């Protein structure tokens, strides 16, 4: 079946431009996560949605980052006034349930969007 998809796969933005990154999770998955993966590093948590509710945005690096999931399915990560330090791969993951004890659901990852800010 279809996995998690992300678009675009590659994005080049000039410094100061706004960008929008899209994530299509697996149909029916309750949880959706965004991660940022800098070059040579492991992914780092940005934000978490349970259905349409954004329950945790503690990992967003600045107020230029904004995420939404208005209908509890597709999610968009928006970065305003991009800076060079925003260059990274942005990963989206979804899982079936709300997660947490006693079950830790497997997260299914998309291929990522590679953002390059010039």
């Amino acid at each position, binding site marked *: 079946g279809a996995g998690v998809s992300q678009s675009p796969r590659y994005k080049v933005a000039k410094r100061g431009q706004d960008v929008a990154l899209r994530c299509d999770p697996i149909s029916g998955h309750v*949880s959706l996560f965004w991660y940022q993966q800098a070059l040579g590093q492991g992914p780092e948590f940005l934000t978490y949605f349970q259905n349409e509710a954004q329950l945790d945005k503690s990992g967003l690096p600045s107020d230029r980052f904004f995420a939404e999931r208005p209908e509890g399915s597709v999610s968009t990560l928006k970065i305003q006034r991009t800076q060079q330090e925003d260059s990274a791969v942005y*990963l989206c993951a979804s899982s079936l349930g709300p997660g947490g004890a006693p079950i830790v659901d497997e997260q299914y990852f998309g291929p990522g969007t590679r953002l390059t800010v010039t």
Partner: protein
Amino acid sequence: AQSVTQLDSHVSVSEGTPVLLRCNYSSSYSPSLFWYVQHPNKGLQLLLKYTSAATLVKGINGFEAEFKKSETSFHLTKPSAHMSDAAEYFCVVSDPNSGYSTLTFGKGTMLLVSP
């Protein structure tokens, strides 16, 4: 707070020889631990997970890992490497007692397999 440390940034093996990728974790709780693999231009794929059942966990593609609480380790092993195993591997910890399961990743170990 929880964290993982992957002790090697790169590991090189010959095809057919054993693989050992080392991981130590730090967690205030009884953690859930995972290994993910990332092939170039592909999404992260779950290899295996430990969630407080058996301490020896078997995963896909012949990989396994052993949870050792006394050593706070969760090393990944495979008896015989294949060329297709060349990829980046991430050790990951999650706090199952949180309301959701945010993953904390290590920095990754690149596995190189030579013929």
